């Protein structure tokens, strides 16, 4: 059966489009006009609508405030919001002022009922009386006695006082924003540290507004957060986004600018390493590509290829095989004791990315924290200890006839040991984990300077430079570096000896230096 389609009818069908809500925003004139019309309709006896009429004056004041509110609503927007929700903060710190008790323990119910109890005391105005208290201690004393004893215990009473004072604090924040901003700006011009600056600003605000010290501290926090939002809302072209990011795509500011949501990944591999470095047992840590031998993301030991091959095809453990090319991330950690156990590695991994190392495959019903796991979706993050690769260094040292052969060889070996121990690259100007412009959920844990970077190849030219820097060594020839088992030798001025991923080199105990006396020399040699 065929159906005839009327193309003309199709053309008449309106395309589906999203509804664009239209606000009721009006300017002052329109608001005033509407309010006058409503007032005239509702109060026919009011006939004097001149500007000098008190009713007209009050109406115009209300119309102005309404138009002002419309203007603020229209300009609120969402572009200024940072691309992060401060979930890393404790619940009590998420709001700039105060928070209600976490629901679930009955404390919220207790506070709500206590509020009703004190606010319904006949003949008393608890809100006004608490607002008049010069300090929190006075308010505590007021609510601890009759007739306000219904405020409950100390914990509920503290929350009740905060709730009763909230209107005053909010009004101060809204109506004295300029004064607060000036106090914070003045404190910022001093040479004090950030904590002392905020304390000074709070003290100045307290002197001006007469609020309690903790309330003034809250007003300073609000101003600080407003500064962050303004920074995030700074108009940017896409060209200038690179000013906010490092070459590897890491954001320099936190919270990230909203436009960075589309252009960069604010969480990089080094953030995982930074988290690992914040563990007290970790000295240095790196995040490298691959699934290195160690502990996998779910807390189980990784398998060798042979072990994985021996498993059944449907055994999910096969996915835990060590593979340097795997699309995974391994945290290579150097611990203070140098030889971490599997349990210690799991603890560090859990510290870095969450408790999945102990409880994998958890669901939303689990009891994990709101910020766990601390990894991007689809990122597989495991952990491995920093391992050592022993290398043989073989060379012929050209020394003067007056030199002590044994001492020169010993000094050259010590120079190479120091080189392999301290690393070849000077500290970069922007080391991993350097302080961001603004602190975020992951406190900075910079990598200590020095030390060989795991997986970094040994450049023979740099080894030569270390040896010839030794006193009494005139030159080096036939330099070779090889594996500890005597294979894999490399030589040549531009050669590099590859170090496996997650390994650092150490000189083998084998003595491979020979010496030759250089009998001629000088400019004519």
């Amino acid at each position: 059966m065929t159906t005839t389609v009327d193309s003309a009818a199709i053309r008449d069908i309106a395309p589906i489009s999203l509804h664009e809500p239209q606000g009721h925003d009006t300017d002052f004139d329109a608001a005033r006009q509407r309010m006058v019309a409503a007032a005239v309709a509702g109060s026919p006896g009011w006939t004097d609508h001149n500007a000098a009429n008190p009713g007209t004056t009050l109406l115009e004041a209300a119309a102005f405030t309404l138009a002002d509110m419309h203007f603020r609503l229209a300009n609120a927007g969402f572009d200024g919001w940072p691309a992060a929700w401060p979930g890393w903060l404790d619940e009590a710190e998420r709001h700039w002022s105060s928070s209600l008790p976490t629901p679930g323990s009955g404390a919220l119910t207790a506070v709500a009922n206590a509020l009703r109890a004190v606010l319904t005391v006949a003949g008393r105005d608890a809100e006004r009386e608490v607002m008049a208290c010069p300090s929190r201690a006075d308010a505590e004393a007021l609510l601890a006695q009759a007739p306000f004893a219904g405020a409950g215990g100390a914990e509920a009473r503290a929350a009740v006082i905060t709730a009763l004072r909230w209107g005053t604090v909010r009004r101060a924040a809204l109506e004295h924003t300029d004064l607060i901003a000036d106090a914070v700006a003045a404190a910022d011009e001093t040479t004090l540290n950030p904590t002392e600056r905020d304390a000074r600003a709070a003290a100045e605000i307290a002197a001006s507004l007469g609020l309690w010290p903790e309330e003034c501290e809250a007003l300073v926090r609000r101003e600080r957060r407003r500064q962050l939002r303004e920074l995030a809302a700074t108009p940017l072209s896409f060209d200038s986004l690179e000013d906010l990011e490092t070459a590897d795509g890491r954001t320099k500011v936190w919270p990230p600018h909203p436009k960075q949501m589309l252009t960069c990944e604010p969480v990089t591999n080094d953030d995982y390493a930074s988290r690992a470095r914040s563990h007290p047992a970790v000295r240095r840590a790196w995040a490298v590509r691959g699934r290195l031998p160690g502990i996998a993301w779910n807390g189980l030991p990784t398998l060798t290829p042979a072990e994985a091959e021996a498993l059944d095809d449907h055994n999910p453990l096969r996915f835990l095989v060590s593979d340097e090319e795997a699309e995974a991330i391994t945290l290579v950690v150097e611990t203070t004791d140098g030889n971490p156990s599997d349990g210690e590695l799991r603890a560090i991994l859990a510290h870095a990315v969450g408790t999945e190392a102990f409880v994998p495959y958890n669901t939303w019903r689990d009891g994990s924290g709101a910020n766990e796991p601390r990894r991007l979706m689809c990122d597989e993050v495991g952990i491995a200890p920093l391992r050592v690769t022993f290398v043989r260094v073989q060379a012929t040292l050209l020394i003067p006839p007056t030199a002590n052969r044994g001492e020169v060889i010993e000094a050259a070996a010590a120079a190479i040991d120091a080189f392999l121990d301290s690393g070849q690259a000077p500290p970069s100007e922007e080391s991993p984990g350097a302080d961001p412009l603004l602190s975020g959920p992951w406190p900075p844990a910079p990598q200590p300077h020095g030390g060989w970077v795991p997986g970094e190849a040994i450049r023979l030219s740099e080894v030569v430079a270390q040896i010839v820097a030794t006193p009494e060594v005139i030159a080096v020839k036939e330099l070779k570096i090889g594996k500890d088992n005597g294979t894999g030798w490399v030589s040549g001025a531009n050669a590099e000896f590859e170090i496996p991923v997650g390994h650092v080199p150490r000189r083998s105990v084998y003595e491979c230096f020979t010496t030759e006396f250089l009998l001629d020399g000088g400019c004519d040699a």
Partner: protein
Amino acid sequence: MRSADFTRTAATLPALYHEDPVSYEQVDGYLGLADTLHEAMLELIEDLEFGVGPDAALRWPTDVPLHAGADTLLAELNARYDALAQWFAYETPGSWGGGEQGLAARRQFLAKAAKAVAPSRDALGIHRLVLRVLRDHRTRASALPA
């Protein structure tokens, strides 16, 4: 220089109205009724994540009187969380109840659900989801032919 975020309506009256403190206080109190509504609205704009996010229960709702009591407060917050749960096409089960335990369950669901759908699971939640939804909406709307 920064200006105030809000000016009380009575403060905009001519100076004549400020001369008598008693009558000015009366006028201020009368107009202050509307001011309180405006302040609550500004608070909601400033702290929207506490109005439409898992942390809504950490703030006293601006539209619930302080003397309302626990039943009213919990009903309001549970209703708010139920509405947010529908963003995830989820009807909260009746077995969760309407008390504080039910509120805690709803809050936990929202926090976990937001993590599940958010592109990044660290320190993000409905906040980013809201931003994305609003931006996508705005982008699509602006792309439509006039």
